[in-house]
């Protein structure tokens, strides 16, 4: 999946990496949204996106991720607050703001009778750029759509349609790309392609904001993560820090004989006894280099503690939400 030629990537990636750009590329302040139904979908969101970063918005269904994205892109009218895109107000200076943004929506909404080629060229001009067949060809080739360019969109599979939506979003060479659940209902291969594409775009200096339900996806891709819960942004943190704080894992020994207490030889690990001493549980940090597991298993064996089974469990996104929300209350 090559989106741009390498020379271009190399040229553009240097400033992007240096990227501690002072001004945020998106500045959201006090943003609220109450839908006509009276439902408060967003409650006072403050968020700054840095130029060139990959930002993942995590949150359960109905948290408000799509609403937030839709406001920045101009599809939903905010109830209050301001959004600046590269310094341009999204309402007063909407042309300059929107010209910088590409959006891949969550739903697969495409025309049916248009060809791939026509629809992608349409997108470019709609965003005020003059036709550029070479760029469109590069985008289509990068997304493995070139062979399908003359096909009507309705004849494509779901995964291909999603690629078409990405191609449309990239047609006008946006500086900021929103991907609303790019990997929902997508097979492993396309998912890998998508990640590769995101990295390539980032190397070109494109800022990327994606939403996802999968914590491993955020872990894999993002520089920073924001967690949205019931219309509030409850955490915004560097990925590595967040994973340290929240990405807990557990290793459970199912013992043959119940233990009365944790043997002192094992005090170097954070161990708890559960289920009346029948389970020995070790909680550790998922992102740690040194988990001490091999050593622990050896010591347990040396101490002659017999176990029937070993089980590991990673804290799910749900657990993280629960812990975040209960921390706040």
């Amino acid at each position: 999946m090559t989106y741009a030629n390498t020379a271009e990537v190399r040229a553009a990636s240097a400033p992007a990496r240096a990227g501690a750009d002072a001004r945020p590329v998106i500045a959201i302040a006090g943003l609220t949204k109450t839908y006509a139904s009276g439902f408060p979908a967003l409650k006072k969101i403050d968020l700054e996106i840095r130029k060139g970063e990959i930002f993942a918005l995590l949150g359960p269904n109905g948290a408000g991720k799509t609403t937030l994205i839709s406001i920045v892109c101009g599809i939903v009218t905010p109830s209050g607050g301001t959004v600046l895109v590269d310094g341009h107000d999204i309402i007063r200076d909407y042309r300059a703001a929107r010209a910088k943004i590409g959006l891949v929506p969550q739903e697969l909404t495409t025309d049916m009778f248009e060809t791939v080629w026509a629809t992608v060229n349409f997108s470019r001009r709609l965003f005020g750029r003059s036709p550029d067949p070479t760029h469109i060809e590069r985008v289509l080739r990068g997304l493995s759509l070139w062979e399908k360019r003359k096909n009507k969109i309705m004849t494509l599979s779901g995964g291909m349609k999603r690629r078409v939506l990405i191609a449309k979003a990239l047609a006008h060479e946006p500086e900021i790309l929103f991907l609303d659940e790019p990997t929902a209902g997508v097979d492993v291969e396309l998912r890998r392609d998508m990640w590769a594409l995101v990295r390539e775009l980032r190397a070109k200096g494109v800022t990327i904001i994606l939403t996802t339900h999968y914590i491993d996806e955020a872990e894999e891709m993002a520089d920073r993560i924001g967690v949205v819960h019931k219309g509030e942004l409850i955490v915004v943190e560097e990925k590595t820090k967040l994973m340290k704080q929240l990405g807990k894992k557990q290793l459970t020994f199912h013992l043959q004989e119940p233990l009365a207490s944790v043997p002192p030889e094992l005090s170097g690990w954070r161990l708890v006894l559960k289920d009346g001493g029948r389970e020995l549980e070790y909680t550790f940090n998922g992102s740690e280099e040194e988990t001490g597991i091999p050593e622990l298993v050896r010591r347990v064996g040396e101490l002659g503690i017999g176990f029937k089974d070993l089980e590991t469990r990673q804290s799910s996104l749900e657990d993280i939400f629960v812990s975040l929300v209960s921390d706040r209350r």
Partner: protein
Amino acid sequence: MNSVAKHCIFNGHAIAAIYKFEMARALRTLLQSVVTPVITTSLYFVVFGAAIGPRMSQVGGVQYGAFIVPGLMMLSLLTQSIMNASFGIYFPKFTGTIYEILSAPVSSVEIVIGYVGAAATKSIVLGLVILATAALFVPIQILHPFWMIAFLVLTAAAFSLFGFIIGLWADGFEKLQFIPMLIITPLTFLGGAFYSIDILPPPWRAVSLFNPIVYLISGFRWSFHETSDVSVEISLAMTLVFFFLCLGVVAWIFKTGYRLKN
């Protein structure tokens, strides 16, 4: 990497893109869009021209067959402008592809020019196809070609705007049909498409003057035959009023985001 914003004042590319998209939609069904009016017009001439015409002979000094040509054109122009424009904007709302238009750096004026311009173009072409078909049946005279074109374009634009409003307002396909079928078509028939309202008894003639379509047909017919039910200045004024009324409503809709944005 990007040199956006040379076009910060006017996005002509977007207008071209929308216009081209809409015209491509019509070209895909070219046969249907041309054959249908040709057949319908021919049928009208067979029924009205050949069967009834000889008994009517002349209306206001014009042979009946030629007399109904402007009315026939108006009938199609009004309904098709509405249908084209309402469908053009309703469909993206229905499928969700409107997200792209809403997220693009385009103003409401540009969106309207793109959609309404395409819809009006289509119905003007349709009107000319009907005129050409009619010429096969009756000799056509156009005494004021400039005004004929002016009325044609203005009416197509006004009713395409009206259709655009209906498309924005509609929340189901049946609503798209409702106004052209149940309001515009009857009003056109009663508005003197096939007769002069002068032949009606005075009370009905008075009632007819409340039908705005009377003015459109009358002015258009004047540009052909110099015969009219009401004075041509009033016709022109009424057409302009309707045009600006629709323009105002569209402006209001975009300003408030009514049925377009949450």
